[in-house]
């Protein structure tokens, strides 16, 4: 029972810390680009403002448009619930393994894209079409990276996989390096960051994610923005805890949990800086360069897998 309560608390922590991570990334980015930075709490204020505002629905909008924010938010929270954040061996991890996790994200993407088509404007369709194209190319890379991990740890359960890396100590696995690079590139594409998409732009011809959700306002927009922040955090936690699990709590004792919390906070702060540096030195790509970007990521993941098969399994 304690475990279930802890799992619920961890999920809550995940959900409510996600905007803070967004704030941190935004702030570092401003510093990096010599701009005045907003407060760390700015994302919370934005969300609060959006929740209070009236909602304008487009005339053609059907129930798909109105239901999508809830479905996206629900699917994203459930994804967050199965990712080990502070501690491993929590019971929620058994509900869904990493393939199901990819499935959840695909479900959220499916509905977001439908909502984009629901209004019947060119923007919505454009965003949906591009998002599904990027998603279709990113998903096999993600699964390939994950398969490398799953085959090494012989499990697709995230908690078990993390424990496996933790127990195997500081060994150099070339396959993991390739898989990690692939996963990071996918994370950039899937969360709509530079160079694949730019979350800060509303420039008509380059929008992808923003084009789909252009018609959302008020609380619907708040849910979608929040879900986006949680999704960014999910990918960062995945990279942090699968490949660098050290510090994560293996026992459900107060001491271990505190260490786990501090460890994940430090890892996320660091990864946030990495993301900002990446976003600052890269330029946004033309849409039809994105397949090359993701093709490279696929190659890395494939190399990772083959390295695993050739080098790391004897015989």
């Amino acid at each position: 029972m304690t475990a279930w309560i802890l799992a619920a608390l961890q999920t809550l922590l995940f959900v409510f810390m996600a905007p803070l991570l967004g704030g941190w990334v935004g702030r570092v980015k401003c510093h990096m680009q010599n701009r005045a930075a907003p407060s760390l709490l700015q994302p919370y204020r934005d969300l609060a403002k959006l929740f209070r505002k009236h909602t304008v629905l487009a005339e053609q909008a059907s129930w798909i448009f109105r239901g999508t924010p809830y479905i996206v938010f629900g699917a994203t929270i459930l994804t967050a619930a199965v990712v080990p954040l502070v501690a491993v061996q929590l019971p929620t991890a058994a509900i869904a393994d990493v393939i199901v996790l990819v499935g959840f994200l695909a479900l959220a993407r499916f509905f977001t894209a439908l909502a984009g088509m629901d209004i019947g404007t060119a923007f919505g369709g454009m965003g949906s079409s591009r998002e599904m194209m990027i998603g279709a190319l990113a998903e096999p890379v993600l699964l390939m990276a994950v398969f490398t991990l799953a085959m090494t740890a012989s499990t697709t359960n995230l908690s078990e996989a993390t424990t496996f890396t933790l127990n195997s100590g500081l060994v150099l696995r070339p396959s993991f390096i390739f898989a990690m690079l692939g996963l990071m590139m996918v994370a950039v594409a899937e969360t709509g960051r530079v160079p694949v998409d730019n979350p800060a732009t509303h420039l008509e011809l380059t929008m992808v994610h923003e084009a789909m959700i252009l018609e959302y306002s008020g609380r619907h927009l708040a849910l979608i923005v929040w879900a986006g922040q949680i999704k960014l955090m999910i990918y960062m936690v995945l990279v942090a805890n699968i490949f660098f699990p050290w510090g994560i709590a293996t026992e459900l004792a107060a001491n271990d949990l505190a260490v786990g919390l501090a460890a994940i906070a430090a890892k996320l702060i660091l990864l946030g800086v990495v993301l900002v540096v990446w976003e600052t030195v890269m330029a946004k790509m033309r849409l039809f360069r994105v397949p090359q970007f993701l093709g490279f990521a696929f190659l890395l993941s494939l190399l990772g897998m083959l390295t695993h098969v050739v080098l790391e399994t004897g015989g």
Partner: protein
Amino acid sequence: MSPLTLAYLALVSALASGIVALGADRYPGLLRYGSSILLGACGLLAIVAGGWALLDETPHLDQLALGLPWLQWHLRLDVLSGFFFSVVGLLVLAVSFYAPGYLQDYTHAKIRELAALGFFTGLFILGMLLVLLADDAFVFMIAWELMSVSSYFLVAYQHQHAANRRAAFLYLLMAHVGGLAILLGFGVIAGFGNGFTFEAMRAANLSVTWASIAFALVFFGFGMKAGMVPVHAWLPEAHPVAPSHISALMSGVMLKVAIYGFIRFTFDLLGNIQWQWGLTVLVIGAASTLLGVLYALMQHDLKRLLAYHSVENIGIILMGIGLSMIFISAGRPELGALGLIAALYHSLNHALFKGLLFLGAGAVLHATHEHDLNNMGGLIKRLPQTAMFFLIGCLAISGLPPLNGFVSEWLTFQAALQAPSLDSGVLRSLIPIAAALLALSAALAAACFVKVYGVAFLGTARSRKVAHAREVDVGMRAGMGLLAVLCVVFGIFPSVVIGAIDAIPNMLLGIKPPSATAHGWLWLTPISPKIASYSAPLVFAGVALFAFISYVVLRARPVKFRRGYPWDCGFGALNARMQYTATAFSMPIRRIFSPVWDAIEQIEETHNVTQPQRTETIRHHLQVQDKSWSRLYEPIGRLVLAAARRVGRIQTGSIHTYLAYSFFTLILLLWVVT
């Protein structure tokens, strides 16, 4: 009373439904009510008979005094045929609800060929069920031909259009080339087994070479019927032109009968599976999966698109079977059982959601008389319930949790991830690549169904007929509703169904998967809970709970909703033609995977006479063709024609020459005999 008795009753009802329909030309009501009720009875009986046989786990054998004097009809209902019997029954039941409403169009239009439609529908279902019961090669082939030929008449039903006649002929041709291969396959194994009963064939002792030849023949034959790449090209021609409920039966279950035949032949009759066979099946399965979905993405005729998705899903099923064969030959039957279960479960799921989608496409066709996605739009408001059911079908076929399509794809992934336990390094690295292709296909399928649903049901109507569509009648909605509910139920409670399917690997391989359902109905743990677990009920509850909580929390503080115009960049007046069309939606993917298609794209511009730099009109013309035509079918067709011309030289047209041919042949034969 035994399951076999019920199965006979199902066969008799199917036949009776066909015979009753013979009077339909004079009394159309006979087809709409009499014949459909009998079909419903046939469906129910088949579900019960099949389910009973599946749970009973003992094969029921019988011999009927029909057929050849020295070979009576041997029939057998065991767990494998029982499972497929239920699958066919489920879809026949849904179709029996659906058909009366759908046929209104035909009865009102005073088409005087209703008798043919009803008669051949009955025979078609009879043929499919009889294939499943066959226990000797003779009955099997008779039933197989009954199924193929009667469905030919259904494909050719709307023969007023030349394209339909062509599709039907192609279908007949392919069915017979495939049928011939299957017959030869049976011939090889019967030659070694000294008998045409399956009992004798099981006992046959084949050398690996002969077994491989038999395997290659039946894989080609059944694969052709199932629509695997590269011999799939007939499928997207033939399936869409039949009336929609027949398309649902053909895509949903006739392809599964071919899968049944393949499993029966390879696992049950042939045995001694080689890893090379498994690898072939896996590679062809992966190719079918990817090419099927890529071709589907380029279609904008709804039913053709769905037909291409059948190629994709048959590919997924073949991947499961291929993995199973590889693991069995490597001496890991417990993993082989897992692959087989994934394939069987996907067969069931595909029957449900593809049936649902074809019935939904039929409903759209019935309400709007429109095939082309690019003329649809906004149907969610005109057909709200059909739209709901169709959405469930789209989610299921896209392999999204928590629906049924996801579960079987997940199981296939789990089987593929067990590749490290194999000894061969080639297999260890090829299998995960196949799995990555499956992931790519699943994601592309999701893109394709966002396109289908977004263009057809969302946005605003692109033509007048669509704007004034009316919701279809209760029976049609009931047929779709039944399948939609089953898609959800089989997605949320997979462990219950898989617990029943376990009996099939138990019969074929003598092993049950170790713990697929060992941890109760809540958990699906194909290998062990440490390796992978999935709890569909909890997932469903979780998404619903979180969505509900956020809804309730927000409901507590209501804010106003206002309707307004969408953003039009300040230019004003958006119209339906500004929406993304199906062609536009898939354009980025067409560009990325361009080598896959033979695409001809033309842009014609006309310019203003006085100001040549001003463009008056632009016409965009795009034709995307299946490469299997230009690379496989057409060369073979040319080859056959050339050969026929050579042979034609001996045909002089003079009766004397022909008599001389006969005479010399006779003499030759006499010489050979003596």
